[in-house]
């Protein structure tokens, strides 16, 4: 006979009588609204940040590194000096930081699906999109942290936007609207691809040409014609134009409309596709 290793630090065994009374003592509470359940899921995302603070790494350290690298590596070459370059780069690098982070939403969703916890959420009698909408609400907090961190770094190394605080906040707000739309692309991908790695790979492939084939780092006027053609239709370039305009205090009404149009389109198309796959995921 073998002796048991150190006993698990488990609690007492379950009690049949207590289980029976727990089952019997229930009156069903009224059904919560779509807003309530979405907010509950948003709080889950925040609780997860509390328990796993490492996951804030990508919204803090990463944007700082990107900002410093691009400013000091290319500042002199592109704009003749870092002070001049940060004025051009800062709004763009803000957009880049936040858009890269949106990818993690898809990866997180895939993880939830793989671990089975989404089966539980989907088996509940609640407004169906609320688990996803709640996730995006929680992510809005992460996006805001990334934007704040990036903004502060840019300020510290000499960025003084003409639009002032109001312009900066308006620019970040507009950026969050677009990020909300774009995230539905990743949620859809995470429902049709079967591994977290696949989701990250596909998201990266889509995001790279959108972010780097844009006006974030340099003036498109210096680029070959075919690339200028791409940038003129690239939605991220429109976001950068609009955010840059708001932060610089110039008039960008048309660009802002473009961004709202793109965001609404993304939600309409990929939000619907996501909910369609959500009924019957792989």
């Amino acid at each position: 006979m073998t002796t048991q290793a150190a006993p698990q630090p488990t609690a007492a065994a379950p009690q049949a009588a207590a289980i029976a009374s727990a089952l019997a003592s229930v009156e069903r509470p009224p059904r919560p609204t779509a807003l309530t359940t979405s907010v509950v899921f948003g709080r889950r995302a925040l609780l997860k940040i509390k328990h796993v603070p490492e996951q804030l790494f990508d919204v803090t350290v990463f944007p700082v590194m990107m900002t410093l690298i691009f400013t000091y590596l290319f500042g002199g070459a592109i704009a003749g000096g870092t002070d001049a370059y940060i004025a051009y780069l800062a709004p763009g690098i803000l957009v880049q930081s936040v858009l890269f982070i949106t990818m993690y939403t898809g990866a997180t969703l895939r993880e939830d699906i793989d671990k089975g916890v989404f089966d539980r959420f989907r088996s509940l009698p609640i407004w169906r999109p609320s688990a996803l909408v709640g996730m995006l609400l929680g992510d809005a907090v992460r996006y805001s942290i990334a934007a704040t961190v990036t903004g502060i770094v840019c300020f510290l190394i000499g960025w003084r936007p003409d639009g002032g605080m109001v312009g900066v906040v308006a620019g970040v707000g507009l950026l969050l609207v677009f990020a909300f739309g774009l995230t539905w692309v990743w949620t859809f991908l995470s429902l049709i691809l079967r591994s977290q790695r696949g989701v990250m790979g596909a998201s990266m492939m889509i995001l790279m040409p959108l972010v780097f084939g844009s006006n974030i780092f340099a003036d498109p006027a210096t680029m070959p014609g075919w690339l200028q053609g791409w940038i003129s239709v690239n939605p991220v370039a429109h976001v950068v134009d609009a955010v840059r305009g708001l932060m610089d205090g110039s008039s960008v009404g048309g660009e802002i409309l473009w961004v709202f149009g793109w965001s609404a389109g993304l939600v309409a198309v990929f939000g619907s596709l996501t909910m369609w796959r959500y009924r019957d995921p792989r």
Partner: protein
Amino acid sequence: MEDLAVETEGLVKVYGDTRAVDGIDLRIPRGGVHGFLGPNGAGKTTAIRMLATLIRPDAGSARVLGKDVLREADAVRSLVGLTGQFASVDEDLSGLENLRLIARLYGYRGAAATRRSMELLEAFGLDDAAGKQVKNYSGGMRRRIDIAASIVVSPELLFLDEPTTGLDPRARNEVWDIIRALVAHGTTVMLTTQYLDEADQLADRISVIDAGRIIAEGTSSELKASVGAGSLHVRVMHRDDREAARTILVRELGVEVTPTSDPQALVAGLEDRSGVTRAITALEDARIGLAQFSLGQPTLDEVFLALTGHQAASESETTEEAA
């Protein structure tokens, strides 16, 4: 109309070339435990997931507690609970936070959600671990928090997908006690398992499922009776004698005698018991030493073998997967 917990007709789910569920007809009455018994990949989980409205059938229809799983999916969701094969709680959150999350989603507000969660944690012997992250729970505690999460609002029908797979014997007994307590309260439980003794112990009725089809249905005794009067288990002292013993048994009993994976053992399904005395005498005359010679009700293992022509829950398969 009879009041059924689950009623399906020609339920089908296809994944690529695989017909995971291939035309299942079920009529499961309310109350008690209905067991879904089959090896890995037989389609048990797929069937349960369709009934719990997690995936949509490709053909056929299903009604759960009188509600259609497609047209009245939301009504079904409000009446059933589900405990998946993998712990379907958030491992990063504590036990209490998990239950509070579910309670809030059911409409409990702040303090009421906490009260209900604590009540369940105490009932399931988890109050000491309430503040610990679920990732630090033992396998048995995970299953308990998982089942607790399924009954935050008492369900009329509870789906349990392989609730004891991977648990040690003590934890398995605790889960069995929980299931018995649920049934005693009047909850209908639909349980999938690949363990024959589990189905034997818990289930009032059993559907045997293989390759997406139901191949037999009945109480555990009915299933056993369908195989024959019982079975004869013979174990020889020396493995070299097994073939000789088999020849003698076939001659004396007039039935098929099957060697088992144990190199010293033989098993035979009997239509009647008349030849048994002659058989043991013949073995003695041939000087074949016997370690065991016993008559018994067939085990569900033998039932499965007789029904499908292959072993249930093939131990070798499970071991290979684990390796």
